[in-house]
Structure formats: structure tokens, C-alpha cells
């Protein structure tokens, strides 16, 4: 059992807004700040582009954790996008929690273009959290499991 836990590497999908968080991710690269390779970033113009469908899709296809990163509230490149993200994701995450899906599998974090260190730290922390939870079972699609 212990061995399994060690071996388990969760797949994390990170949606990053182009203007702040994607740049923050770039900065953590420029500064050579490590975070696990199982974090894969998808670039979106704004966190408000992320449809709940995308979050569920990631879980369906095998992700163990999904994180959205956007500009800090008040700093959105499009002025208001992340305010909508905040409401939408709060409600979505609350619903997932209500359905009994582990609440630690989802996260929203505001990361500015200057916060390369925060980006790496956030990813490291999120990976550690999801690793503790183990494989996503409650939102998996059995058909998509690797055989």
C-alpha cells in the first residue's frame, strides 16, 4: 500500500490565463523553480473562459486534480473576467463537494505575472494534496482508464 502511494503520480490539469498566471508559470520556469511534471498547463485568454464542462472533462479523461489560475481580483486584463470565474467556480466546486467528490481535487488560485515563486509553490502544494487523496475514482469514466 505504501509503495503504491509513493508511486502514484496524480495528473493535474492547470488552466492558466494568458496575462497573469501563464506568465507567472513562465516566470517560475525562467527562475528554474521546480514543480512536478505531471502538472500540464492549458493556456486560456482569461480564467473566465474556463467552462465547468472543461473541468469535468479533465476529470473524465483521467485528471486527478484541476486547478484554475487567473489574475488577482481587480487585476484582470479584461477587468471583470475573474470575478465571474470566482462565482462560477465557487458554485461548481460546492456542487462537486455536495456530490461527495473530494473538495481538494479542485482549486482556484490567483497568480500574477510576477509570482513565479507562488506558481511553483502552488503547484507543488496542489500536487502533494492530490497525491494524498489518491486516484480520482469518483469522477472517473471507466472507459477512459488506461488498460
Amino acid at each position, binding site marked *: 500500500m505504501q509503495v503504491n502511494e509513493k508511486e502514484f503520480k496524480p495528473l493535474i490539469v492547470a488552466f492558466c490565463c494568458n496575462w497573469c498566471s501563464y506568465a507567472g508559470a513562465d516566470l517560475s520556469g525562467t527562475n528554474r523553480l521546480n514543480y512536478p511534471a505531471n502538472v500540464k498547463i492549458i493556456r486560456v485568454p482569461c480564467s473566465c473562459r474556463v467552462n465547468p464542462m472543461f473541468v469535468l472533462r479533465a476529470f473524465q479523461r483521467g485528471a486527478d486534480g484541476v486547478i484554475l489560475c487567473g489574475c488577482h481580483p481587480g487585476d484582470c486584463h479584461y477587468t471583470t473576467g475573474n470575478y465571474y470565474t470566482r462565482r462560477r467556480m465557487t458554485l461548481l466546486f460546492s456542487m462537486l463537494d455536495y456530490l461527495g467528490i473530494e473538495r481538494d481535487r479542485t482549486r482556484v488560485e490567483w497568480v500574477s505575472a510576477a509570482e513565479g515563486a507562488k506558481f511553483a509553490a502552488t503547484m507543488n502544494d496542489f500536487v502533494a494534496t492530490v497525491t494524498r487523496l489518491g486516484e480520482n475514482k469518483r469522477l472517473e469514466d471507466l*472507459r*477512459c482508464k*488506461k488498460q
Partner: protein
Amino acid sequence: MKSLLLKDMDRLLAALAENRTLYVPTDGAGGAEYRLYQPGTPLSEALNTNRSAKDFFFPQTENMMRFQMRGKEIRIEEPTRPDEDFVVFGVRACDARSFELLDKVFLSEPVDSYYQNRRAHGVIVTRCCGRPEETCFCTAFGIDPTAPGGDVSTWQDDQRLYLAANTPAGQALLNGVAHLLTDAPETAADDAKAKTRAALANLPIQNLPLDGFGEENLLAIFNDPRWAELSRACLGCGTCTFVCPTCQCYDIKDFDTGHGIQRFRCWDSCMYSEFTRCAHGNPRVSQVERFRQRFMHKLVYFPANNQGDFSCVGCGRCLQKCPVSLNIVKVIKALGGEKA
């Protein structure tokens, strides 16, 4: 005819479950459904299950094959066919009759091998209805609930369950549990049958005018202006279709699993906008046409192709489940002409 004390019912079920997978109707959240037999769980006394018994042979979704992609190569994999023997216990006469209708579709050429495989592995034990309800009209289609059919028929009175095999498979099933059964005269269940017949005589839906649905009236019925009125409230959901024991339409879809394509089929409903979607869309563009299709199929096209057998068994599920109380009885009464 064999018999069993009702108090030994669970022993019988346990014995049946020993060698085969056994499904029985039980009550649970949401109503009665066929569920895997759990020792000690009483049989549902509900008139019928929410979903019909057709699921056993024609499940809502069924995998057909897989395509594997290796680089740019495509490999096809056959699915594993379910091969376990199973018994469905407590099927009502209406649902039992539906298998015969489904057989006409799936077992005539070209034979549907998926259906055929499941059919070959299943044994049906039917159960005479004790208390038919107001939504029942199976007798309109010549079904006799006191002779419920299947591989084994059963009846029950206050003390005993009576069993009679109708097929070799049924006989084999009873032989396997012979130690629990005692012999009974062929007339043993007559009281139970009589009671049921008496109840049937009082059902509110009687004498449905079905004579007018002959092939010769096809165009007249098809073009009848009353379809618009009959279908007006239809929400276009698939409830009637999915609870219906005789609806047999399905769609074949490919699902990209990320490491191959899973081809599967799943029930479809003629009520849906995407049903029989071709390059130009659904040939039936309005809900009136979709609604008409469903009943034309059940009442006109199917009998025309199947020696006059209607594709309805009068189970009454659509009467109970339609969100806006549309159903086949209303259509029959409106368009079936004068009762001969």
C-alpha cells in the same frame, strides 16, 4: 404444476441464485426495479417495475467493439460477450410478451448477435398479476395475465406459489430446485386466476378500438389532422420510449476514450431531435412528426410487418410516467375508429 409455501419463497430464490445470476423485482429508492437478488430481500408487490424487463436482453448501452490506434494503424477488437446464465424472476405477462415482439425484430435476419447472445443465456420466470391497476390494458392485445408465459409461469394465492414450466429451459430450471417444490394439481392455481380475471373485468380501460389500424388505413391515419392536437403538449422527452418494453430503437456511437475508440450502441428515442440524424438532420423536423412516428410504428407499421401484432403490450408504464399525461391509449381512442 408444482407448488411452494410462500414462506419458503426466499429459499427458492436462494436456490435459484446458487447456479445462476438471479434478478428479482424489489422495492427501493425510486420504486420497484429488477435488482440482483440479495438473500432476505422481499419481492416487490408493485404492479410493475419502473423500467421494463427488456433491459436484460437489450440493455440501454452495450459495447460493440473497440478500435485501437497505434500510431497511424487502426486495430479492431471484438468485445467480450457476456456469457453468464441468468434468471429473471417475477416478470409480468406484458413484459414477457414484449420479448416475443423484440425477438421478431432482433432474431429475424439479419440476426442481432448481441441480443441473441443475451437471450440465449436468460431464463424468464413470469408471475401472474394479482392486482391489475387502472393503467393496465394488456388484454387489448390478447395478453392473458393469468397465463403469463415465459419459461416458467407462476401464480400465487394466500399461502402458496404455483409454478409450471412452459419450455425445456424452464423445466430444467424447476428440476434444479425440485427438492423445494411439491406437486400440485393442474387446477391448483385456478382460484388465483379467477381472482385476477375478476379484477381484469373491472379495469377502466376496456374495448380499445384497434381495428382501424390496418395497413389499408395507413395513409389516412398518417395524414389525420388530429396528430397536431394529440401531440401538442408533448415535451419531446424520451420517458415513454425508455420505460416502454417494446421500443427497440438504438443509436450507434463512437466514444474516444483517449486510447482507442469504443463503439457502443444505446437506446434512442424517436421523440428526440437528433433521432435518425442524417447529413441533413432529422427527417422528422417537428414534434408532431416525431410523436406520430412513435405511434404509427407501434400501431400501424409494426403490425403491417408482423402478422398484425401490435408493438404494445399494454403495460401502462407510459400512462404512469408521461410528464404531461400523453399516452398510447389516448391515441388509440382518437384514431382507432369505431370499435368493431
